[in-house]
């Protein structure tokens, strides 16, 4: 009861119109976390040769691909639905597409049985994906910062 009156009188974040944030942007970090996780578990497998870590990589890559799939669908819906796609800079678009395609190949490489599911191709691909994502983030940050600085002056 009191909560109702409070929110009516002093609007907080909950009262802001929902759905302004594009839905795909909530999924992207999850997919990135999965791919980064697979890189870590690949590294541990390479060093330990314990199959558990290779299994973790398999599931992380598969989960990452499924989430990325949903993110792409959500992105299309967001665009079609006329949501403002803020800050989708070209390096980010290119970086994400590359990361997803390489991870798709990596998911298949990881279906192999035994050591060569990870070493050398799988580990190389998961490293490459992490490097691409870091580079993307850096370029993107640099671009956005410059634009903001430019807009401010």
């Amino acid at each position, binding site marked *: 009861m009191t909560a109702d009156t409070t929110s009516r009188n002093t609007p907080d974040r909950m009262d802001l119109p929902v759905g302004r944030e594009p839905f795909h942007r909530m999924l992207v970090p999850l997919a990135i976390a999965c791919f980064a996780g697979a890189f870590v578990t690949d590294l541990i497998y390479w060093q330990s040769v314990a199959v558990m870590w290779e299994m973790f990589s398999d599931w992380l890559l598969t989960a990452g691909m499924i989430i990325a799939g949903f993110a792409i669908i959500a992105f299309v819906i967001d665009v079609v639905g006329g949501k403002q796609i803020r800050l989708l800079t070209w390096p980010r678009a290119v970086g994400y597409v590359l990361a997803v395609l*390489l991870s798709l190949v990596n998911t298949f490489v990881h279906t192999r*049985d035994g050591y060569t599911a990870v*070493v050398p191709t799988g580990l190389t691909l998961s490293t490459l994906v992490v490097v691409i994502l870091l580079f993307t983030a850096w370029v993107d940050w640099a671009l956005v910062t410059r634009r903001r600085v430019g807009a401010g002056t």
Partner: protein
Amino acid sequence: MKHVVTIAQSVKRPCLVLVAFAGLGLVGCNYDGGDPKVEIGANPQLPKLQQYLIPPIQIARVVGWGKETPTVPRGLQVHALATGFEHPRSLYVLPNGDVLVVETNGPKAPIHRPKDLVTPWVMWLAGAKAKGGNRITLLRDTKGDGIPDVRTVFLDHLNSPFGVVLVGNDLYVANTDAIIRYPYQEGQTSITAPGTKLTDLPGGPIDHHWTKALLASPDGSKLYVGVGSNSNITENGIQAEYERAAIWEVDRESGAHRIFASGLRNPTGLAWEPETRKLWAIVNERDEIGPDLVPDYLTSVRDGAFYGWPYSYYGQHLDPRVQPQRPDLVATAIAPDYALSSHVAPLGVAMYASTGLPATYRGGAFVSEHGSWDRTPLSGYKVVFVPFTGGQPSGPAQDVVTGFLNENNHARGRPVGLAVDRTGGLLIADDVGDTVWRVSSDSPRSASTN
């Protein structure tokens, strides 16, 4: 001709892109297998190992037999001994001529990887997912006309049984996780007495290769057990392979065992060579390194020998998928005697020393090839005969029972266990057609000698 070349190029180009894309080699594009015949015999030609990006799957869709039967060469005839089984996998003939049909399938496989979610669908399409009866059915032909007139449930409520052997009045059944002994009197059509466990065998929770082939030594003092590996190539960890991929020798009195031979990935059938009295085995080799690797084989089994799995194949050919490697073991690995060709999946062997079939089949091994599921074009799906001279294979394998695939490469059935019945007929369990076939001589003269 030009057309063909264009198509070939257009197929090749995306592959090249894929190779470039993957950045590193190991992505083979030529997925089609060569002539299986070059991999039959003592010196198979082994191609270079290749690794896939997408695991190859080519399965024969199941259509069943309808009114058709398998095809046999001149001099032989084939008919259905009995039908309507639940996934019949192996056969055993009792001294009084009764035929035991083991109706069985593997236990449910656990899901360890995303790949394990796909495998059951593939197996279902290939008709390999059918529920096994977990029982043994007895067939008796009292009139001697080749048609059994007694059919009873001989033993029920078993646990993925496969091997059966009778020593005196002790009947041994190799479930997937234990050898169980039952009392048997000649003429009995069902056993209700509870069994006694002789020994545990490597079973769950993974139990990748679940069949346990069983054979008794000629003097009856030992039992030999074919125990398959727990993986394709140690992807479940080397710990899961403890005492697997081996042939066990079990003492029949005490149940104690030792490893008779090791490095045999999946020894699915055991038999005594009648001339030299040596132990022979059929073995299913590893997958996913090419359509023409690694040939499955038929080999004599030497006491204490190591046949390579998982570290190497056909002697010292290293498998890079196994880490850490064991050069010390690889140095001792011996090559098997006789290659049957890759992915044919031999699941039944019968040394033939009887007289019921034409003379060309006296002295040699019948081998049933269940058929490939990961190779293009399909291979196996037939029963072959490997002639023997002086206790050694002495020629190329000949097709004997074919027609398990129809002209569209659909499976009418798939041959599994083999046995020779009392009158010398060759019995074949067909786990997709749910039938037991009997191959006999078509000349009335040899039939009358029965």
